[in-house]
């Protein structure tokens, strides 16, 4: 089992540690709901050092990534980022990614820990023949995220970087607590926030500096449990639940990420053009109006019908809304806002209604 550079700190903070994608990670510290509420109302500090940081550089890097991914990284300005996916030739999703353009010929592709090896293997194959090099910097790059409405105010007290001009999905180099980091205004919580890419051996000092100085202002360490409920409320997919090798971006409602108008071929283009207008299923939001909480894998039915038509991919009791929410795949024909369905919860069925995503959107 791999451990992050913050492992001892998590244990000292009383975190409950769980195995996750080959890593020992904190699932919660004081409590999931408390951490969730802190991120929605003040700020939380996350250790995301398990994520994969893959550096692609070279004169042909932009073109190589345009071929390898479904988005068009060549269109990114330096210092900007976008959400992307890497698909198989059949159009299914190998992983969802954030791609940062860190220089004219330099990109950082951030992959899920569970898919890091698959993404590396696919990129190696797809970069061949391009003037581009891949370096897997995952085990030397830690990632600390500060997320929440107060995160900008808190971080500004510790950095020389001008956060006021740092746009959403932008990245700059700066120092935080005297440590040189890359500061990205990105996240997975539905709140304003920053992700700090920091050398492995300096992650502890960075974590300590922020937590020590800002705990009195309400900053709390937050675990993977809160990260999951925060992203679910924000309607964001989680690989392995909403996305997998059985699912295309169009089915997940993420077709906007696929740039058919970019020049040249890209892996998955033919298959994705074929499913573009006729996805076999559609990801929806559900509010459970009956009794119970829908969870991953629970079946979805048309009212009183015997055979299941869909499946729940993620579900919880929403800490912000105070009611059960879920995401599910349904046949396109029944995936209409307002449609009334039933979720099979153990031996019973609970009424559910299709609602638009996200469940939660921050006030701006």
């Amino acid at each position, binding site marked *: 089992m791999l451990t992050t550079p913050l492992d001892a700190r998590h244990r000292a903070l009383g975190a409950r540690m769980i195995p996750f994608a080959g890593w020992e990670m904190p699932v919660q510290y004081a409590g999931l709901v408390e951490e969730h509420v802190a991120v929605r109302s003040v700020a939380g500090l996350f250790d995301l050092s398990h994520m994969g940081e893959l550096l692609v550089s070279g004169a042909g890097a932009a073109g190589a990534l345009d071929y390898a991914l479904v988005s068009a990284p060549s269109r990114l300005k330096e210092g900007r980022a976008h959400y992307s996916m890497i698909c198989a030739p059949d159009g299914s999703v190998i992983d969802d990614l954030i791609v940062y353009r860190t220089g004219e010929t330099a990109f950082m592709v951030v992959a899920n820990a569970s898919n890091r090896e698959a993404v590396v293997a696919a990129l190696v194959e797809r970069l061949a023949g391009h003037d581009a090099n891949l370096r897997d910097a995952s085990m030397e790059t830690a990632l600390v995220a500060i997320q929440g409405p107060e995160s900008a105010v808190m971080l500004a007290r510790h950095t020389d970087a001008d956060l006021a001009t740092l746009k959403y999905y932008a990245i700059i180099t700066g120092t935080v607590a005297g440590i040189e980091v890359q500061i990205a205004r990105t996240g997975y919580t539905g709140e304003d926030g920053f992700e700090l890419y920091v050398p492995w051996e300096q992650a502890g000092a960075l974590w300590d500096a922020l937590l020590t100085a800002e705990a009195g202002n309400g900053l709390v360490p937050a675990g993977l449990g809160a990260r999951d409920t925060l992203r679910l409320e924000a309607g964001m997919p989680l690989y392995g639940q909403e996305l997998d090798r059985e699912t295309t971006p169009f089915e997940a409602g993420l077709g906007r990420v696929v740039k058919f108008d970019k020049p040249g071929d890209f892996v998955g283009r033919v298959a994705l053009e074929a499913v573009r207008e006729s996805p076999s299923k559609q990801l929806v939001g559900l509010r459970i109006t009956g009794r119970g909480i829908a969870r991953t894998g629970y079946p979805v039915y048309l009212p009183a019908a015997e055979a299941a038509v869909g499946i729940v991919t993620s579900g919880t*009791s929403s800490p912000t809304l105070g009611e059960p929410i879920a995401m599910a795949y349904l046949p396109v024909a029944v995936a209409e806002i307002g449609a009334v369905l039933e979720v099979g919860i153990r031996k019973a069925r609970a009424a559910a209604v299709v609602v638009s995503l996200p469940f939660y959107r921050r006030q701006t």
Partner: protein
Amino acid sequence: MGYPDDLKYSDEHEWVRVEGSIGTIGVTAYAAEQIGDIVFVELPGVGDTISATESFGVIESVKAVSELFAPVSGTVTEINEDLADSPEMVAADPHGDGWLIKVEMTDPSDLRSLKDSGDYELMVDDL
């Protein structure tokens, strides 16, 4: 946390308080703490039968579903109706107001396989 002496405890972290032939069943403070943020409790109905060591319901946190295992066999005579609106009461007072169900016990020998408070406390201290 204290474990009252008048309760008997199962290895699955449920307790039973015996008064005559009626057993009141709940989850232990240890279990409630482990589950965390309790948001939903699903219990059997009055008149249902439950069997020792078998599942009789679930208790859910924001994160996960946990099964409830019966410490004794019996017929359900009462359920704690307050938990439908206030599931958090299980964690707030696990050995008291957070009780789950009452049963008419059908096999007194079930009690022999349960622990007293001292032995249960020793067990959870090692977990």
